[in-house]
């Protein structure tokens, strides 16, 4: 029993990270109907931003929680900028283009980021700085590490922040309007370009946070680290209902738990396979996702 609960905690921590990345996918899809393949690589850049922040700005010194928060802010800024640039120079031109072209461009940018990363950062894995000393806390039958706590708390805070933005600010309302209909929103006087950029920046910032958190969790980082988590987060977004924000969170948590359980109870070779199984199952049986409403498309 304790193993079970422990696995759940591990799964939820992992799932929280997937959720953060999935949010970016879902928001961009909701607003552009585009699968931003490059999103996983933005997450990778976030991790590296944290790494370089530590080595360049802190000079290798450990500033504890405060240092972590500053690094987080730095990474989010960097990735926000990256997201903005990608959208501005590539995706904005493809808004009216055929879907396949946008898809391929996204893949191209993903490859570009990965290969540039290998070139600039070097392909070999680096050690992500341990901003905080690892300790564990035992509560009753379960052990939770302080890293996991940080992950969970950060995710909750960021998610609440996102909810606030989406539901209580003018920009958030604009985002929701644009995801409903570009034309209608435009006619209402909303500056679509700005809303789209904002969405990208927001999503990228969340991915950056995920990158930092993963760095704390699994200290090895390398330029191709974004591929699998990106894919898993994407499946999470689809699972929850792509375009649906609470869905992304739910999907992320489920993916995290499913993966942890598969590794724990089945075998670690199937760790990645479970992702695809879930993906195909969702697409075949409930393509609109768990929280998406099965739509009868009007002709």
């Amino acid at each position, binding site marked *: 029993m304790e193993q079970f609960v422990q696995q759940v905690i591990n799964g939820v921590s992992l799932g929280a990270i997937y959720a953060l990345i999935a949010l970016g996918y879902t928001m961009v899809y909701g607003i552009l109907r585009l699968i931003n393949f490059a999103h996983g690589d933005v997450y990778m850049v976030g991790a590296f931003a944290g790494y370089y922040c530590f080595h360049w700005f802190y000079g290798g010194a450990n500033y504890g929680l405060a240092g972590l928060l500053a690094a987080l802010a730095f990474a989010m800024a960097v990735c926000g900028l990256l997201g903005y640039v990608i959208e501005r120079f590539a995706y904005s031109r493809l808004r009216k283009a055929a879907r396949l072209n946008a898809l391929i461009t996204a893949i191209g940018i993903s490859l570009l980021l990965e290969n540039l990363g290998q070139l600039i950062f070097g392909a070999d894995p680096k050690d992500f700085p341990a901003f905080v000393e690892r300790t564990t806390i035992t509560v009753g039958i379960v052990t939770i590490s302080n890293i996991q706590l940080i992950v969970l708390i950060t995710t909750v805070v960021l998610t609440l922040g996102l909810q606030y933005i989406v539901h209580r600010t003018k920009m958030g309302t604009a985002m929701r309007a644009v995801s409903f209909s570009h034309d209608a929103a435009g006619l209402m006087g909303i500056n679509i370009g700005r809303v789209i950029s904002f969405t990208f920046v927001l999503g990228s910032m969340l991915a950056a946070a995920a990158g930092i958190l993963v760095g704390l969790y699994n200290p090895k980082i390398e330029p191709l680290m974004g591929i699998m988590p990106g894919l898993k987060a994407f499946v999470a977004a689809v699972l929850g209902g792509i375009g649906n924000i609470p869905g992304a969170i739910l999907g992320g948590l489920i993916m995290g738990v499913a993966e942890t359980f598969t590794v724990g109870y089945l075998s670690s070779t199937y760790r990645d396979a479970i992702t695809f199984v879930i993906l195909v199952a969702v697409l075949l049986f409930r393509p609109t996702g768990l929280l998406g*409403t099965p*739509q*009868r498309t*009007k*002709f």
Partner: protein
Amino acid sequence: MNQKAVPVLDIDNVCLSFGGLRAIKNVTLRVGDRELVGLIGPNGAGKTTVFNLTTGVYAPDEGRIALKGETISGLRPHIINRRGIARTFQNIRLWGELTVIDNVRAALARTTTLPLWQAVMRTRRNTQFEKDLTERARALLANFDLVRFEDERARNLPYGEQRRLEIARALATDPALLLLDEPAAGMNTGEKTHLMDLIQRLQQDRHISVLLIEHDMKVVMGICERVAVLDYGEKIAEGRPEEIQKDPRVIEAYLGAPTH
């Protein structure tokens, strides 16, 4: 209304909802042999939805649709077409990259496609098949005065010609019932007169029934024998064109309630 034994099209008490929205409520409509029936109503009344139900895009939640007595509701669209219903679309939906003659040939061939290997190996049977197909396609195009555009990509055709091509293509599937969705939209008076002649000729020469959605009242009054009126998904009136024109419920649906 002439009704030989079984009506060609029998839409019987059909209902359809989209999520929570009831789009079609208890609609009953019959089209007899060689009848030309009009379907009118304000925008959003559900006219195209009735077409979609008839052609199998949606299956009704309640009720039944039958073609010449046989139930077709719930069947897949291409099966329904092969049973004998063809349609045109409100927004022209030609196969843009295909040539004019290919649009017709593709519709002609759908039930008489040769086994694949013959096509691939370019056998003599295949060559003959293609020749026949082309001749029949040309004959059809000639009826619509489109032969000169034969090798043009459908997307390059002028608007009026595209509309005619869509009708030609629908006819290529040899239907017993033809559904025309706003065929006169965007046409000038001359073109409309031509269209009206065309539809009437088709109906008589080819022994087909026609159900026509139209907003232009001159067209409706000019050629329809009977008219049904839809408003908010319900049939509110049915009768001869002259009767419908004077029906207060119809006027209210289009113009709003009279304010006394």
